[in-house]
């Protein structure tokens, strides 16, 4: 049982390590000082007022959200048929195809970003929303594909046959039987895709302008020159938004995926 205690201690310390920077950011955003202090000196929400009155932040936030939503939607449209083809069909070049579609997961994003910039410049796909979107679709599609693939199993074929047998057409079977079977993978893939897009710097940084900026790139540019409580306030807002999103997802689908039951 002592080993159990050791694991427990390591685990709790690690959880603490994961929590600490977030606590610092949120704590720092509340300070009354003009510089970032942790623990905060005094408590105020004035830094939040400052950034919420700054239209550039609001705009970047909107662009990031729309970009992530669009990239996730398109990536599902691409990854779902690919997953069905890879999981359910035999064809030549299958291994090569899945390697191709999954490779953005492991290739340096900065290289993909640079490549898209250079290539995009030759076809006019540069420094606009479409250029951002194309890059994000390429890097988030593998997240959806990777979560979808393990969801397909041979047993589902008999469920689908049962559905056809009971009078459901191909589309009806797909929506009533296939999708519920792969739902967990679809949802978790979509979540990962959305987040990956929403927090991306490496790819966006090549195609953002002062007029078309995503929130992470804006933060990145700012943080390199100054660290003040208003940045902590922006960061805190993204943390709170993330926490709200996670709690919502947990409530909708349940995040108890590490349970051994």
């Amino acid at each position, binding site marked *: 049982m002592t080993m159990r205690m050791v694991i427990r201690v390591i685990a709790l310390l690690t959880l603490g390590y994961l929590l600490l920077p977030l606590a610092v950011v949120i704590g720092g955003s509340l300070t009354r000082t003009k510089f970032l202090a942790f623990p905060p000196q005094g408590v105020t929400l004035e830094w939040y007022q400052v950034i919420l009155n700054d239209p550039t932040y609001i705009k970047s936030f909107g662009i990031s959200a729309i970009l992530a939503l669009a990239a996730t939607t398109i990536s599902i449209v691409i990854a779902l048929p690919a997953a069905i083809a890879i999981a359910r069909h035999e064809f030549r070049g299958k291994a090569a195809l899945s390697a191709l579609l999954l490779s953005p997961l492991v290739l340096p994003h900065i290289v993909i970003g640079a490549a898209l910039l250079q290539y995009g410049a030759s076809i006019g796909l540069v420094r606009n929303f479409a250029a951002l979107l194309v890059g994000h679709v390429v890097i988030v599609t593998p997240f959806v594909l990777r979560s979808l693939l393990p969801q397909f199993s041979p047993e589902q074929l008999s*469920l689908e046959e049962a559905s056809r047998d009971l009078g459901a057409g191909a589309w009806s079977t797909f929506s009533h039987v296939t999708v519920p079977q792969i739902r967990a993978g679809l949802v978790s893939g979509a979540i990962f895709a959305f987040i990956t897009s929403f927090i991306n710097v490496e790819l966006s940084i090549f195609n953002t302008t002062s007029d078309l900026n995503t929130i992470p790139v804006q933060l990145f540019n700012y943080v390199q020159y100054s660290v003040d409580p208003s940045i902590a306030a922006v960061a805190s807002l993204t943390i709170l938004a993330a926490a709200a999103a996670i709690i919502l997802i947990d409530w909708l689908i349940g995040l108890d995926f590490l349970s051994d039951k």
Partner: protein
Amino acid sequence: MTVLAISNVSKSFGAYRALDNISLDIQEGEFISLLGPSGCGKTTLLRIIAGFLTAGSGKILIDGDDVSALPPNRRPLNTVFQNYALFPHMTVQQNVAYGPRRAGASKAEADRRALEALEMVGLAHLAPRSPRAMSGGQQQRVALARAIVNKPKLLLLDEPLSALDLQLRKRMQIELKQLQGRLGITFIFVTHDQDEAMAMSDRIAVMSNGRIEQIDEAEHVYRRPNTRFVADFIGESNFLSVVPDGGRLVAEGGQDAVLRPENLRVFASAEELPSGWQSLPATVKAITYVGGTSNIYLTAQGRELHARRYSPVPEGITEGSTVIAGFDPAELHVLRA
């Protein structure tokens, strides 16, 4: 009236011929079994009837309409799958209501019919449960309810009892037969278990190597097998060689004939032989007892013979003793050449 007509259906997978020119007419209200060892083509045939496979050639007609080109969802039949294929993300009631819903019934109507079907299999009280939490027998009944709820013309059952234990299997055999009688639906039952087929079927189609070897009433299949394969696959058989007219035994060069073990008697001496019976000298190799039944294994003229009796073995017949094996020639069934 013929509800299902299978006409000249063949199917190949690559070079392997899974079904070889199958023709079969099934009457309304019939309980018919497709019986054969694994790989005989029975499941392939069932899947072609259901529409999950397309026949290489030939036609499937239901009530006279050619359904060969229809997808499974447009065929007026339902299937009970081998592993039940219950939707794990739905409750029992939702599973059973699935068919009516797809047929366009309102939710209330579908639920009502689902409950009705569940009532028939005695599971209405488990309607809100998840099928995952149920025993094999219960899942089986849910699968059955789901398949009959739309009142199909034909019910296909793909080895539905094979996952159940022996006791439950016997009980389900009786229930299935009763249910079929109540519903009046035609049942096509795929099995490799001869006892199961014998116990339930009006007719049995014995299949081997993609062909129907014989289709007949259960008793006829047993008493008058068409081929050596049928005689061997169904029940136990002694194969003898006989002269076609008169049925006189010969050592070789005759025609194959079947004698069931219960029709072979063993006598201590030739005097005990009833008149008109045929006989041959034999040596007792082994005697075994199963319940009230005794099995006597003999060798005669280089052949292995098997006699079964439902009364004690007479004194004087022991392992190693020389005896007379005899039978009434009327019980001998000569196979078609």
